[in-house]
C-alpha cells in the first residue's frame, strides 16, 4: 500500500473539478510564509513591540490553518514560535529567553499556536470532506441524469464514458457482456481507446472475479489501465476500463468512486436488459393473442358449415329411414364429413404447434386411463384389430397434460390401424424408468422403409406405401405435442414385423399406494 500512502500525503495532480486537488509542497510554502512574516515584522518591532509581533504570528497560524493541511499548519505553528523566540524575544538572535515573563509568554504562545493550528485545520478538513461528499453525489447525480435517463442504451453508455473521462481526466472504454455470458473482445463504440491483448486479459480477470483489477488496485497493479467490473448483484455485465496518463495517480477514494460509477453503468445495462425482456414478452404476448384469435375465427369459419352439414345428414337419415340407396349415400357423405373434420382438426393442431400457442396443463394422470380413453376414441377406426395393453405392474401416476398425451396415443393408434391389416394386433406398453414415462405402440404392418424413417414426423410427409386418406399430419402432431411436453418420440422397425413408436416423457411420479396411506 505504499502507493496509497503517498496519495494520502496529498501529492496527486488536480482533477478537472478540483475534486481531489492538492497544492504543491505545502511544507515549503509553510516555511516561506513564516519567513515572510518574520521579515515583515522585523522593521515593525520597534513600533509595536515584540509582544505584539506574537499576535501577527498567531494571525498567520489561523490563516494557514484555514488553507493548508494539518502537517504544514503544525509546522507553521512550531516555526512561528521558534522564529518569534529567535528574532524578537530578548535576548534577540538567540533561543535564550531572559525574563521569566517572556518564558511564560513563549510557552503560552507555543501552546496556543499549536492548538489553533490544530483546530482550524480540523475545521478545514471536515469542511473539505463535506465538499468532497457533495461533489461526489453531484458526480453520481450527473451520471444518473446523463446516462441513466438517456433515451437509448448507446446514448447512455456514451454519456457515461464522457462523464468518467471528464471527471477523472482519463480515457475510458467499456467492454460489455456477450449474450453467451463471456466478455466482448471489442469495446463499445463510444470507448476512446481499445485494449491490448495484455490489458484485455486483466479486464477479463476483473470480469470473471468481479473485482477491480489493473493499475491502482491490488490485483495486477503493473498494468497500464484500471478495470472495474460493471457489477449488479452477483452478476458482472461488463467492465469499465480507464486509461490514465503516465504520471497520474488515483487513490482509493477515486477508485471507490469509479467502482460506484461502474456499478451505476451496470444498473443502466441491467435496466436496459429488463426493458428489452419486457418488450420482447409483450411482442410475444401480442402475437400469441393474435394467433389465438386467428385460430379461433378460422376454426369457427371451418366448423360452422361442417356442423350444418352434419346436422343436415342426421336429420335426413332419420327422415329417410333405414335401408335403401339414399341411406347408403348418406352413410358415404357421413364418412367423408368425418374425414374432413379430422383433416381440419389436424390442420388446426399443426398450426397451434407451429405458432407455439400450446401450453401444456400438467395434472396427475392414470396412464392406464389415458390409454383406455385413446382406445375409446379410435374404436371405430381400429375395427377388428386387437389392441393389447400391457402396463407395468405398479405403474405410478404421472404428472403430464392428459389431453395432449391422449391425443398422441390415439394418433399413434390411428397410424397403426392405417398401416396394418385387419385382424392384426396392435400392442401398447407403458412403464416408468428413471422418472421417464415410456409408452410404446407397435403394429404388425409391413414396416417403413429405412430411408423414410427420418422423415416420418415431418408435416405433410406421406410414406410411399401409405394408404390414401391420411393427411400426413398425425405423426407430426404427436411429435409437436410430445415436444411441448418436454419429451421425444422415436420410431424404428421392430425386429419381427411392423414398426414401433416410443414416446419418452420426463415426468413427476406418484405411487398410488403411498397416497392411500395418506388419504
Amino acid at each position, binding site marked *: 500500500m505504499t502507493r496509497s500512502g503517498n496519495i494520502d500525503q496529498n501529492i496527486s495532480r488536480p482533477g478537472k473539478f478540483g475534486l481531489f486537488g492538492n497544492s504543491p509542497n505545502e511544507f515549503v510554502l509553510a516555511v516561506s510564509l513564516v519567513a515572510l512574516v518574520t521579515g515583515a515584522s522585523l522593521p515593525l518591532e520597534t513600533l509595536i513591540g515584540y509582544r505584539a509581533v506574537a499576535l501577527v504570528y498567531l494571525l498567520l497560524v489561523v490563516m494557514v490553518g484555514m488553507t493548508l493541511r494539518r502537517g504544514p499548519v503544525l509546522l507553521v505553528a512550531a516555526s512561528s514560535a521558534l522564529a518569534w523566540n529567535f528574532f524578537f524575544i530578548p535576548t534577540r538572535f538567540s533561543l535564550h529567553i531572559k525574563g521569566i515573563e517572556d518564558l511564560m509568554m513563549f510557552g503560552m504562545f507555543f501552546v496556543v499556536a499549536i492548538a489553533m493550528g490544530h483546530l482550524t485545520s480540523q475545521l478545514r478538513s471536515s469542511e473539505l470532506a463535506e465538499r468532497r461528499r457533495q461533489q461526489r453525489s453531484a458526480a453520481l447525480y450527473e451520471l444518473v441524469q446523463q446516462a441513466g435517463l438517456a433515451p437509448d442504451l448507446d446514448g447512455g453508455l456514451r454519456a457515461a464514458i464522457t462523464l468518467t473521462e471528464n471527471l477523472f481526466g482519463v480515457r475510458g472504454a467499456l467492454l460489455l457482456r456477450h449474450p453467451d455470458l463471456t466478455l466482448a473482445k471489442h469495446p463499445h463504440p463510444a470507448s476512446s481507446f481499445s485494449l491490448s491483448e495484455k490489458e484485455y486479459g486483466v479486464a477479463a480477470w476483473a470480469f470473471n472475479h468481479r473485482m477491480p483489477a489493473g493499475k491502482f488496485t491490488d490485483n495486477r497493479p503493473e498494468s497500464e489501465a484500471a478495470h472495474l467490473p460493471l457489477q449488479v448483484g452477483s452478476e458482472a455485465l461488463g467492465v469499465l476500463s480507464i486509461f490514465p496518463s503516465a504520471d497520474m495517480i488515483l487513490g482509493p477514494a477515486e477508485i471507490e468512486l469509479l467502482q460506484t460509477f461502474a456499478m451505476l453503468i451496470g444498473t443502466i445495462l441491467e435496466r436496459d436488459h429488463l426493458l428489452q425482456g419486457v418488450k420482447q414478452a409483450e411482442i410475444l404476448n401480442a402475437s400469441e393473442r393474435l394467433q389465438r384469435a386467428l385460430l379461433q375465427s378460422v*376454426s369457427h369459419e371451418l366448423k*360452422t358449415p361442417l356442423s*350444418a352439414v*352434419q*346436422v343436415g345428414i*342426421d336429420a335426413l337419415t*332419420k327422415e329417410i329411414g333405414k335401408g335403401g340407396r339414399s341411406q347408403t349415400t348418406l352413410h358415404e357423405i357421413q364418412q367423408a364429413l368425418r374425414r374432413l373434420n379430422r383433416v381440419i382438426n389436424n390442420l388446426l393442431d399443426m398450426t397451434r404447434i407451429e405458432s407455439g400457442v400450446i401450453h401444456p396443463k400438467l395434472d*396427475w394422470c392414470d396412464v392406464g386411463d389415458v390409454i383406455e380413453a385413446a382406445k*375409446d376414441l379410435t374404436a371405430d377406426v381400429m375395427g377388428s384389430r386387437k389392441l393389447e395393453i400391457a402396463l407395468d405392474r405398479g405403474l405410478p401416476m404421472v404428472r403430464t397434460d392428459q389431453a395432449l398425451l391422449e391425443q398422441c396415443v390415439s394418433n399413434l393408434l390411428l397410424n397403426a390401424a392405417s398401416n396394418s391389416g385387419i385382424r392384426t394386433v396392435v400392442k401398447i406398453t407403458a412403464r416408468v424408468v428413471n422418472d421417464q414415462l415410456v409408452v410404446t405402440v407397435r403394429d404388425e404392418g409391413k414396416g417403413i422403409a429405412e430411408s423414410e424413417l427420418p422423415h416420418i414426423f415431418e408435416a405433410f410427409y406421406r410414406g410411399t406405401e401409405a394408404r390414401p386418406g391420411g393427411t400426413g399430419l398425425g405423426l407430426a402432431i404427436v411429435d409437436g405435442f410430445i415436444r411441448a411436453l418436454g419429451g421425444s418420440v422415436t420410431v424404428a422397425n421392430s425386429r419381427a414385423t411392423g414398426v414401433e413408436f416410443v414416446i419418452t416423457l420426463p415426468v413427476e411420479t406418484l405411487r*398410488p399406494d403411498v397416497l392411500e396411506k395418506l388419504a
Partner: protein
Amino acid sequence: MSENATALVIDDEPQIRKLLQVLLEQENYRALESENGRQGIADVAQRRPDVVLLDLGLPDMDGLVVLERIRQWSQVPVLVLSVRDGPADKVAALDAGADDYVTKPFEATELLARLRAIQRRVHGEVEAARVEAGHLVIDFASHIVTVGGREVKLTSTEYALLKILALHAGKVVTQKQLLREVWGPNAEEQSQYLRVYMMHLRKKIELPGAAERLLKTESGIGYRLVVPTSTEARQS
C-alpha cells in the same frame, strides 16, 4: 321424461338454427330460436324452455356471459354447443353453469343423448331413488350398489364419488366439482386422490371385457357415468 319439451336454440348461424329445428322436431321437441345473446336471455325468461342449446360465439356477447346471466335466476338445463374444443374452454363453460358441452360438429345421437341426460338430471335429482347404467344399479335409499345383480362393497369415499356421478348420469362432472364435493373445498387441486379412487371404483364396477366403459374419462375436464342406450330405452 316429458314429451314435447321446449328446446331453445341460441345461435347466430341461421343454417344451424334451421337444421337444429328440423332435428329437434323429429325428436318431438318444440324448437324455439334466438339469434343473439340478448334475445336468448329474454327468451329464456319469457318463454321458459325446458332445455337450452347455447352457442358460445355470439355476435353481441360471449356465450359464457349469457350463461352467467341466465344462471342468476334460472336452473334451466343448458347444453353448450361450440367449435371451441380445448379442455379449458369446456371447463370454463361447465364452471359457469353449463350442464354439458358438445363440440361442433356433433352427431345427432351424441347431441340427443346429452340433451336427455341433462333434462333427466333436473328431474332425477329429486325423484330417482335408484340409477341404472348398463349392468350397474345404484340404490340411493339403501346405499347398495350391484353389478350384474351382485352386490359390491364400496368404501364411503368410493360410494360418495359414484353417487355424484350417478346423480349426473350421462353428464360430465368436472374434476373440481368431484374433488370439492367429496374431499371438501380445499382439495380442488388434489387430483391425485381422484385418480386413485377412480382406479379402484373402475375395478369394482366395470365388467372386464365390456365394450364401453361405464366411467368415461374426459381428459382435462372430468368424468362421466355413461348410460348405455339400452338402459335408457328401458327406463323411459
